[in-house]
């Protein structure tokens, strides 16, 4: 990328970090976030691919950041038969369709305060595409600032993308891993709503029940609803000080020890995984995507209420 500096993004008009807030610079990896202002100046950059990922499937088609591609979390990221993510072959095909090469920097954004953007980001990390960032504030901030949007679906020249085999070990936890964490009294974060955590509800408020037969939480899990990490007025992440207070001071999470986050199917917890990993710099965080729809349905697993 012309004029690039670490991590491969041009320093625009005096430097990338100069456009970020002082608080952003205090994040463990501040360049993992990009601002709406910065992205607005990079929309013509061929080395950047903007990807929108939403819960609401109508949103992208109704208007999106010019040039942005759409990644549908159900159709594009999940295996269509088994409960699992796409394979290496599927990821290579997706990246080819998006015209992305290993050198392309991807900027994710989406609705719901980047909840689904972080989920897509996490899946991309399973395949080691580390040239990835998240638009701080996501779709909400971009819209609130009155920045341009259009309905043109971009087409990209298919690329050749050779991905490694999906590597689940570092950032993905499975049921047996979580059971071991429980037995060893390790650190777990339940990012669902308080009523889901307590077992009063089996699903999010205003959402349908998707089949958990038992309510409650994994023994020993701390309750930190995912959305506490964002500023609701513009969807941006809270300051590093606020995040430290939330996770470390109030809940006593120790950055030096492994943390496993979970929710219902692993989407909300990918947002928390992102905040802990990149904004607070926890070195060992995994997302348990089986989450409550697996744990709350499994025979014999321990549950706390």
């Amino acid at each position, binding site marked *: 990328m012309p004029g690039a500096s670490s991590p491969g993004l041009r320093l625009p008009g005096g430097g990338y970090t100069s456009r970020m807030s002082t608080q952003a610079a205090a994040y463990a990896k501040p360049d993992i976030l990009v601002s709406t202002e910065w992205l607005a100046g990079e929309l013509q950059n061929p080395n950047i691919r903007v990807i929108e990922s*939403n*819960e*609401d*499937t*109508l*949103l992208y*088609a*109704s208007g999106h950041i010019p040039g942005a591609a759409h990644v549908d979390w159900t159709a594009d990221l999940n295996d269509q038969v088994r409960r699992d993510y796409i394979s290496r072959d599927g990821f290579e095909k997706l990246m080819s369709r998006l015209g992305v090469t290993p050198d392309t920097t991807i900027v994710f954004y989406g*609705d*719901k305060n980047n909840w689904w953007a972080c989920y897509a980001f996490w899946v991309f990390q399973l395949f080691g595409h580390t040239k990835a960032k998240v638009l701080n504030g996501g*779709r*909400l901030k971009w*819209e609130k600032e009155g920045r341009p949007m259009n309905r043109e679906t971009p087409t990209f020249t298919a690329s050749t993308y050779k991905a490694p085999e999906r590597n689940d070990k570092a950032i993905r936890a499975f049921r047996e891993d979580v059971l071991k964490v429980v037995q060893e009294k390790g650190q777990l974060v339940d990012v669902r709503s308080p009523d889901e955590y307590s077992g009063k509800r*089996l699903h*999010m408020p*205003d*959402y*349908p*029940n*998707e089949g958990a037969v038992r309510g409650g939480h994994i023994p020993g899990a701390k309750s930190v609803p995912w959305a506490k990490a964002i500023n609701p007025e513009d969807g941006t992440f809270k300051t590093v000080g606020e995040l430290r207070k939330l996770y470390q001071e109030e809940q006593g999470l120790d950055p030096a020890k492994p943390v496993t986050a979970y929710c219902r199917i692993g989407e909300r917890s990918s947002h928390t995984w992102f905040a802990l990993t990149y904004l607070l710099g926890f070195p060992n965080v995994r997302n348990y995507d089986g989450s409550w729809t697996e744990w709350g349905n499994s025979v014999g697993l321990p549950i706390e209420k």
Partner: protein
Amino acid sequence: MTRAPAGAEVIENGGVSDSRTPTHYPEALQDLLDTFATFDDQAERAQVLISFSDSFKEVPKEVATRPFPKDHLVPACESEAYVWAVMRPAGTMDLYFAVENPSGISARALAAMLTKTLSGLPPKEIATVSPEIVERLFRQNISMGKGMGLMSMVGAVRTLAQRAQGIEPKPASAIACPE
């Protein structure tokens, strides 16, 4: 605040009604459902829904102005949708909506479809509408978080139509959280 135009009566909302499925729907709504049943392609359905969303017209100031009264707020709808029903001298009912969430594309689409197919009908006919139409209209374009709110919008319309007939609606729980 809510205002009733001359010769009209605004029906007060108070919740949502039950979700029984009727044997038939008013003709315009049935035609719309039949049309949507022909869409096999998700993208095609999405484009039609977005077209409806684009055609959405907010409640006129003759009926209500901001701040909208909370008793017209649709329960469990994250798009912050409001609904009003105004009785006309001919005994028909007009429906009006507001959707405060700028990302409320689905809510605006549904509001436009309900207005187009039900406004101007007698309350007795409007009261036949069931939340099950949401699944038939949106299919795979309905997201987890949107479905409940959209069904609640339909339930709120049904409530208003029942109230206009002097029928006290059943509790909302069947619509708010069908488990």
